[in-house]
């Protein structure tokens, strides 16, 4: 019942859940890097199972861009603007973690409802991890005050989609997977730039206080 990929995807999802329980920017980024690392491992396992050389390149791309560059850049940014601890919005942060566990259970049932492609030996619980990452990312975005937290939540959401693509299909075309990676990198850079600007002009990065344009 438990295969290799399954264990890795579920581990990635558990790291995302643990990430949603911390308000510290550095802890969040560390756990994000761990989570992405396990996604890279899941991708590697798929690459071995399918014997496709292109997937190996994707694995290297994930590790270089998403495991190393992006968390490093964001933690540099967090240091620079002194955004250490997120007070959390709407829900207390520990409770967010418990809600994301419920979402994990929910995604188990959602995954069971998906029509499965039998040709590549994928099982429903692979999709569980992916959907759980997606939902946790969304919850993370909703329950953080810091603009930085929203970027991390977005990255988690994107990780979920990527994992879904890797486990539930035979592998998207190579150029598109690399394009997605590049898009993420550029989006993080631009997002980081704007976070920096927000800190400079508002002297905080609390997005719930950005309401000058409310009608």
């Amino acid at each position, binding site marked *: *019942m438990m295969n290799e990929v399954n264990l890795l995807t*579920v581990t990635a999802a558990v790291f995302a*859940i643990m990430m949603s*329980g*911390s308000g510290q920017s550095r802890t969040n980024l560390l756990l994000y890097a761990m989570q992405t690392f396990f996604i890279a491992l899941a991708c590697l396992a798929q690459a071995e199972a399918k014997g496709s050389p292109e997937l190996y390149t994707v694995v290297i791309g994930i590790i270089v861009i998403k495991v190393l560059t992006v968390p490093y850049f964001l933690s540099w940014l967090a240091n620079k603007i002194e955004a250490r601890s997120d007070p959390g919005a709407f829900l207390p942060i*520990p409770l967010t973690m*418990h809600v994301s*566990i419920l979402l*994990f259970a929910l995604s188990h049932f959602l995954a069971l409802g998906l029509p499965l492609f039998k040709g590549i030996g994928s099982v429903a619980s692979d999709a569980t991890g992916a959907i759980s990452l997606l939902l946790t990312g969304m919850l993370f975005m909703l329950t953080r005050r810091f603009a930085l937290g929203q970027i991390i939540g977005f990255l988690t959401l994107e990780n979920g989609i990527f994992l879904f693509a890797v486990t539930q299909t035979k592998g998207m075309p190579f150029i598109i997977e690399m394009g997605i990676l590049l898009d993420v990198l550029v989006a993080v850079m631009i997002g980081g730039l704007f976070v920096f600007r927000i800190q400079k002009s508002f002297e905080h990065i609390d997005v719930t206080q950005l309401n000058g344009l409310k009608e």
Partner: protein
Amino acid sequence: MILTSANLVFIVTLTIMPFLLIGVIKKIKACFQNRVGPPVFQSLYNLVKLFNKDEILSKDCSWIFRSGPLISFSGMLLLCLSVPWLPLQPPVPGCDIFLFVYVLALIRFFSIISSIDAGSPFSSFAASREATLSFLAEPAFVLALVALGISAHSSDLALIFGQPIENNRIPLSVWFFSGLALFLSGIVELSRMPIDDPSTHLELTMVHEAMVIENSGPNLALVEWSYALKLLLFFGLIAQCFVYSLSKIIALPPLLLPLSVLVVMLALGCLTAMIESFSVKLSWGKNPDFIAYAVSMSLLSSLAAFAMNGGS
């Protein structure tokens, strides 16, 4: 109670291991602080010394204060004899999950009211904190055990822990997450860092050590001994969780099982010492955030238990 070889191993370990664990933790902490540290069995010598001392009692305290440590020691001894903290059948069979939890709660109740009975504001304050912490951590602890019980289809601890590897049908993820949940809630229950600093009773920490500040002589000896037994009990269960989850990945020979549990218990001691050396105590307001992680792990473990149960 029949004296089989298994029982003999159990009882011999029970007499040595608690002091060894405490000694190892203290020794490693000393190493990290560039000190030589006390001898490994120093806590045993302390115990002998304390039993030979006179007891000083406050004039306001009643029989509750005097019987508190005795109740907690006897309760702890009972648990140590009936709970399979080594992967062997315990000498006294038939300990249920809920019996375990309730005896622990009973012990805590008596230690709390006996420290209030002493009448010192210092220890009463610590008692109220102890009550709050255990109130927060207990759900995680119980849920982790219940998750194991669900997977094992039994609430008898001897059918969950202490089974030979080939009989063990609990899935890896349940073992692992329960182990994590027990470890995290164990840190709270055993009042270790980062929740409580076991080496001081200063106002900053003021939980376990401050609670027993009025005890002295044989009374204090019993308190320290029951603490050592509690450490043994928790570490034994946590170590088994990790050893069993390891045995799902690599094959362990059956004979090696008790030995590897002992090794993992010592390793847990090292881990605790390292956490205590390298982390700072959380401020009181941050404790719920830490305990939330324990609750999450136990929730995950019960989720896994439900999901796997439905599958198999």
